[in-house]
């Protein structure tokens, strides 16, 4: 609440032994724990979406592969690398900050913001390409019961594709916002090399965004990468289900 240094209180036992009290002020570990718990909720949210995705995968193998094959792997792959590098710049930035190089750290944050925006730009191109191919939420191809309708499995695949990449993109936008805010706090000297929990947590957040993409990318783009020549393992059978290709 205030900038003056927090002096921990002392609790005294009956025998006069003194114990330092952990206050909520300046609790670095508490801040980190809290943020990790928050990230757990994100993991569960995306986890639940992966669950939905996998459930329909067990039902609609071939549709998923076909749909996956039609995604733009070049742009997706490019984005993977962009995100990878942005995670590096973020990490190096924090490292610089902790070693006292504030200027270098700010440069690194700007670099991360650049890569994040690049990612969004590519994503926008990708989505608009899909829109022009007639595959987009609300278009005929993803509605049932008309001449352009795709099979159920593809409707569901693309439904989840737009939902998950959309939510992921939303997280990136939030991340950019957080980084800009962080820069402001650093400039205002509210985040200092001794008191950098905010920076630490935003770096964690950025790694989480990266982490989610690590699974989103192969699940959507790669499962149908070579759709011609092979069969997927029948993961449906692992769960006692059956697939509908019979």
């Amino acid at each position, binding site marked *: 609440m205030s900038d003056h240094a927090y002096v921990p209180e002392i609790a005294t036992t009956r025998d006069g032994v003194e114990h330092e009290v952990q206050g909520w002020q300046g609790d670095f570990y508490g801040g980190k724990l809290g943020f990790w718990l928050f990230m757990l909720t994100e*993991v569960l949210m995306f986890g639940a979406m992966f669950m939905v995705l996998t459930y329909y995968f067990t039902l609609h193998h071939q*549709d998923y592969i076909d749909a996956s094959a039609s995604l733009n792997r070049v742009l997706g792959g490019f984005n993977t690398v962009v995100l990878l590098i942005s995670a590096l710049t973020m990490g190096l930035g924090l490292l610089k900050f902790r070693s006292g190089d504030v200027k270098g750290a700010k440069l690194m944050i700007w670099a991360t913001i650049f890569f994040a925006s690049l990612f969004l730009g590519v994503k926008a191109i990708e989505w608009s390409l899909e829109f022009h191919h007639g595959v987009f939420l609300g278009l005929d191809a993803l509605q049932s019961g008309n001449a352009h309708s795709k099979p159920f499995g593809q409707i569901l695949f693309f439904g989840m594709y737009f939902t998950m990449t959309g939510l992921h993109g939303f997280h990136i936008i939030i991340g950019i916002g957080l980084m800009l805010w962080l820069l402001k706090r650093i400039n205002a000297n509210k985040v200092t090399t001794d008191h950098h929990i905010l920076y630490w947590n935003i770096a964690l957040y950025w790694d989480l965004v990266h982490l989610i993409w690590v699974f989103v990318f*192969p699940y959507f783009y790669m499962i149908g990468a070579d759709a011609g020549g092979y069969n997927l393992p029948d993961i449906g059978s692992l769960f006692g289900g059956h697939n509908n290709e019979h």
Partner: protein
Amino acid sequence: MSTNAKVDYQAEKGGYYKVLIGLLILTTITFIQPSMFLTDATFVVQLLIGLIKAIIILFYYMHLKGETLIGWTVSFAVFIVIFFFSIVIYDVNNFQYVDESHISSATTSAGSPTAGHHSASSESSHTTSEHTSGASHEATHSEH
């Protein structure tokens, strides 16, 4: 533990680059795998690579190494997700009378324009049920 302490940039940055190179290699594998090797198991291989990448990121970029409390909670949450995964997928895949009961992408949906849900769906389900109800009856028995 105090992670608030100062660090030596030059000493630590090497680790970050090593991780980056590792991740780049794994990404390359991700790309070439479907056309190169283990093409029968692309899905599993892809997710395994993802898992390895995730663990590297968690351990090194996110400094999870050595954090017992947080580490355990993370594993617990991941366990819960996987647990939900398995039960739900098992269950909805085993909706009673599986054979006739799944909303599948069979020919009914793809080709039929106009609003034919009513007749089309009930008709198809009726016919299939006649074919398979004997089999499903046996299935019900064997479950007990």
